[in-house]
């Protein structure tokens, strides 16, 4: 495999990882923001969903009561922005570092709750999922390595100034010729 082909393969791999990470963050935001069953999309129903997420955040017993609601109302929009940012590919080094920090934060919170003997909902993708080995494996062995790989890839893949992060497809190359 030539150097160019290796570079192209690496970039495609990076793009796939970045998109997967973006989808994870977008889905996590959607699961927290979506209205409960029987409620239409509205500011009031989204606020109810965020208040429900706040109960999940509170059950971790890591934040003071005054901080729970602001955090719960802030996190899903941050996940949404991060997901869109990763999707755009713009400033990937920064967005990937932030996503890695976020995943690390989620894992630390889950492990802490589990070690304190709390049998609570994870709240990762909406209510109902219990913290346990399954969530550890998913976050620790799937999301974290993926996020780390995208971060490392973002720093390793070098671009010439002005070159897009995503390699040009065959169609665009042909049309350019």
């Amino acid at each position, binding site marked *: 495999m030539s150097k160019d082909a290796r570079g192209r393969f690496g970039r495609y791999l990076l793009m796939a990882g970045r998109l997967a990470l973006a989808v994870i963050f977008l889905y996590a935001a959607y699961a927290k923001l979506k209205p*409960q069953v*029987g*409620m239409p999309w509205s500011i009031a129903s989204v606020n*109810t969903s965020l208040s*429900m997420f*706040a*109960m999940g955040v*509170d059950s971790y*017993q890591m934040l003071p009561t005054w901080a729970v609601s602001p955090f719960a109302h802030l996190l899903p929009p941050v996940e949404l922005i991060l997901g869109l940012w990763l999707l755009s590919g713009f400033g990937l080094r920064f967005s990937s570092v932030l996503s890695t920090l976020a995943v690390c934060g989620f894992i630390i919170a889950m492990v802490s709750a589990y070690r304190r003997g709390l049998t609570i909902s994870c709240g990762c993708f909406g209510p109902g999922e219990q913290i346990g080995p399954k969530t550890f494996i998913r976050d620790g062995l799937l999301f974290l390595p993926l996020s780390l790989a995208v971060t490392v890839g973002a720093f390793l893949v070098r671009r010439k100034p002005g070159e897009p992060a995503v390699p040009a497809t065959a169609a665009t190359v042909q049309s350019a010729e």
Partner: protein
Amino acid sequence: MDYRVDSTREAQAGGVTSLTRAVRVVAVCSILVLGTVAYGAPGAARARAKAAESASAPVKTYGSSAAPIKMEVFSDYECPSCRSLYEQTLRPMIADYVSAGKVYLVHRDFPLPMHKYGYEAARWANAAARVGQFQNVEAALYDNQPAWSVDGNIEKFIAAAMPAADFKRVQKLMEGCTGAATASTDGGRMLNVAQTARGCSLDPYINEDRALGTRIPVQATPTYVITYKGQRLPAGSGVVSWPILKQFFDSLLRQ
């Protein structure tokens, strides 16, 4: 057609045959009537017993069932998190939103096999509920959980939570219930406490709640299920503080 022929022949045969036939008819009718009475009486008794049983079914609720929000809490009296939820959240909630008619709180028993006295405590609570003393007993059980969860002496706290006359009724309901409700192990495998408890009239109520919880599914205690205007929301678990829960209720009531 045959009947008419027989009747004519019997009439012709004389009075002795008619008398025998009449005796037979009376005997058959008597058997039928007695049989019906004998069969019907236990049925009626069963129905009466069932009606009486449902009339005295344990009431483990707070507030009005007409409240817009219904909160069902699956808990184990010996579980420390359940105690925290009761003391820090449910108590202020009962005083505030339940008494204001905004929330209907329902207690559901979900004793866990890992807790030695949890099932027995649930029996006491159900017995107390049948004499209308559930709320006092629930408070007593959670307030004194650190004490009775060590030695299993629940009875003295139950006695202190209600008038003597009611406690006597509770003791009567508990006859045949004490002593058999401890979790046991079989070669290191924890047995379900319901498997070890037999012959106690209160156990069906506890097992009914547990079956309901299993269907949700309840994976840990405390687990709470909130229903708003007939729509059941996803179950939550763990301790949630009252200000955060109140905020959620307010957002629901604003819908």
